[in-house]
């Protein structure tokens, strides 16, 4: 199972990085989204892959790692998802504004000189 998730992270990150290096703003935005998937999955995976062990306690219970999945990476990733959403939104608005201002959707605000 670990191999599948690792490969998934790799494919997401690879596609993300490729897009990040492209010249069009929309490509960069999509790339950033893909890269954040990869990173979120990676952080999540540091807690180990456990099935059927969601960290929901019984009332009054003191949980332990033997019974439940690691909740800490999950909490971190939750924060990361939210921040990722915010940055994607900001990037989108920025690229729209830049497009309106510069007349191009190149990341540098002007087409490359050839």
């Amino acid at each position, binding site marked *: 199972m670990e191999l599948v998730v690792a490969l998934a992270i790799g494919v997401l990150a690879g*596609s993300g990085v*490729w897009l990040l290096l492209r010249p069009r703003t929309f490509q960069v935005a*999509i790339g950033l989204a893909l890269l954040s998937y990869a990173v979120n999955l990676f952080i999540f995976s540091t807690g180990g892959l456990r099935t059927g062990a969601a*960290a929901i306690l019984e009332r009054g219970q003191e949980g332990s790692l033997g019974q439940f999945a690691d909740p800490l990476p999950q909490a971190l990733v939750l924060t990361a998802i939210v921040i990722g959403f915010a940055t994607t939104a900001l990037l989108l608005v920025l690229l729209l504004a830049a497009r309106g201002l510069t007349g191009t959707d190149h990341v540098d605000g002007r087409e490359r000189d050839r």
Partner: protein
Amino acid sequence: MPDSLLLLALVLLPFAGAIVAGLLPTHARNAAAALAGGVALTALALVWAAYPTVRAGEVLRAEFAWVPALGLTASLRMDGFAWLFAGLVSGIGALVVLYARYYMAQEDPVPRFFAFLLAFMGAMTGVVLAGNVIQLAFFWELTSLFSFLLIGYWHHTAAARDGARMAMTITGAGGLALFAGVLVLGHIVGSYELDAVLAAGDRIRDHDLYLPALILILLGALTKSAQFPFHVWLPQAMAAPTPVSAYLHSATLVKAGVFLMARLWPALGGTDAWFLIVGSAGLITLLVGAYIAIFQNDLKGLLAYSTISHLGLITLLLGLNSQLALVAAVFHILNHAAFKASLFMAAGIIDHETGTRDIRRLSGLNRSMPFTARLALVAAAAMAGVPLLNGFISKEMFFAEALTADSPMGLMNILPVAAMLGSAFSVAYSLRFIHGAFFGPPATDLPRSPHEPETWMRLPVELLVLTCIMVGVLPAATVGPFLAVAVAPLLGGELPYYSLAVWHGFNLPLLMSVVALAGGVLLYLALQRRLRQGLERPPLLGRLDGQRIFERSMVFLSWRLARRAEGVAGTRRLQPQLRAIVGAAILAGAATVWWRGVGPGNLPPSPVDPVLALVWLCGGACALGAAWMAKFHRVAALILLGGAGLAVVVTFVWFSAPDLALTQLTVEVVTTVLLLLGLRWLPQRMPRPGERGPEVLTRTRRLRDLALAVAAGGGLAALSYAVMTRVPPELLAQHFLARAYTEGGGTNVVNVILVDFRGFDTLGEVFVVAAVALTAYALLRRFRPAPESIGLPDQQAQSEHGVAGAAVTTRGAMRDGADWLLVPFTLTRLLFPVMLIVAVFLLLRGHDLPGGGFSAGMVVAIAIILQYMIGGTDWTEDRMRLRPRLWIGGGLLVASGTGLAALAFGRPFLTTYFGYADLPLIGQVPTASALVFDIGIFALVVGATLLMLVALAHQSVRAHRAAPRPPAPAEAARAPAPLVAAEER
């Protein structure tokens, strides 16, 4: 008054005064002066109150916890030496305030001046009273900072700006060296407390790091005291208002350097290295400064170089490693402060009353301002070392030391000659000051007709000159006890024998004095003709123009070198920068593996489940597809991105993270809608048919990027595999799992971590979201679409229902009559309340079961956005009054309020309270205060998401209004509809 309070008041009072003075109205000069004077006099009184203690040889101390974990305390201490300096700082400070009140012009913003002056006084007091060497370095840099502000006070003149910048650069750099030096010193001693440092002299001198520490500290001290070759900043600093010069260059700023050297004399002094560095710097400065001073044409310039020279004298005395020389140095610090402050003030009076400071223009002022002339005459005589004035006595001590100094390698055999030479120079420039300004025929071409200044302006000069005379005539009775109190702590309490008397009989020092006096007079007479010619720079040393050297090196460093470095390493283009970042990350990862290696993991991999493998086959294909399509087929790329996101969601569900899945799913929806809304404003991009493939250059670039992408993806895959197959022995999670219910009151551990254990993180995060939403909103308000995307999109313009297509943007009445998308329209209306209930459900159960404020907020936002998408902007806004900004503000208020409420119960910020409430029908509901916090987050998320989405959606409304529409019969029949758009102008 307890010692600690006294010391604290002494340091903090000037800063408090500075803040108050800074708040005064621009032209409240009397109020500001009274405030500053009050502060200075209070400080002086406090210093005086400490006198009985220090006279008894005791040390006043105050300690405050600073960084207890590092063993650092903020401490203040005042022994006799610090006492003397504190008195000097506050006493001369009070005189300068009085003088400045009359010196500063009506149109200057005087409160600002006094604010800087007071802050500087506070910083200087801090240096003097610091009981800890780090603190000393801190206040030291503060003095650089405030002296920068004071020198640049008349910032409309280029000279003031340049002078301030130069002083800041040199003394600030010295301060950094000093900071490094005291860190080394602290390392040697094992403590940063001044007491410990002073007590560890032998250990310091024997340590291997002694020399580096000494050089670094001396760099700080010598730059501050304007010693050769760092003296160049001081003459430039004369662009400051004269009260500033009088204060900074007589008693305070430049004395900080000699203060430091004397302070650390017991710890660092006594070695050959100390003698070589300090002694030679002092000797060279003494001679060079005095020589250049003779040829200055500006009164203040002359005094500036004379200050440099006298500081050189003090430094030289400190460098001689003799106890008597130390006494002489401290004594001369006092004397110099008295006569130099009065001379600066006199120069200021001349400038103020005549409008010029140029010695070549001034002449014969003795007639128009006789009283000032006599005061200046006495002060200048003290500077020249004329008997019966204070300068004479310390100079005698200097001569005596020069004769007896024993130095390694006999280096100082020239010392007596050099001492006489320097003294003769000082006689010559003192003569020039007096003779040039006050004697000779009355000047005719002065900008203003000179007359005596106001009595109050002269008072500080009178007091200082009186001091010069008193000390000169009755040294033992006046200054004797204070000098003894000041010197004793430096010498470990034991005083060497010295005699403060005017007459020591006919001896060699007296002879040297006579020779120097006569030599100075002769030198001045001999130079008369050359000086009249009005030399611009001194002969011989004229080429040694420190200012030009300094400026050239500044230009080189900050302009040429920087430009070259930027040309080599900099780029304005984003792609190379990103490439560098990604490349660096890959290299960092690879390097770690290279050095440390990767062993096998301690967890056996779990068996592969074909279902999840299949999910990721699709997910991976989606990711690759999105990367492939993002250039020409944006919608397709967006859909594929969503596919990859769904695969992530499934993975979260699969591996026991329901909260993550829920959040990711809702975020996925909102992100997709956002991007869809944005697509409309991007330029069309289509592969041009018939075009040949990309150029070779482009192809190589792509290959390189592909290699980077593969390396990054492969590296991250390997890294995550390595991480997943090993488990560390200790995990922080254990602590959270055990305490989530017992201390956090919730069974959903992830939620408890977010709203309770790490609530501060979450609070910060929602502030970020709010800031992003407001930024997006602000950017979109000023949004100007590119010209070609203003028109209606092709799909809308060409559709059969041209009007119906545009109905998205027109009045709701249109919507009701239209039948397009009727089924989804009805469905979304029916779903709306259901979704709201789901949201409330998610919110309430969040603490115990998957859910929580964030996903609940997202669900509400999705419900509303659905109405927008299907019903149209106007239809929705006619029926719902959304106030996203209120939601944001309310959410932030509730979330921070819950955190602050804990303070009211005496608990730390964001402590939560929990319990369960029985509600009829619903059953037990957790009522932790964390729930209120979560409600705040919920409101904020609703507001922020809606604000962004609606702002983006409104762009279409705006653009449609601007765009020419195809004529439609239904529209032509109707009156032009006023558009709602409450958010719009």
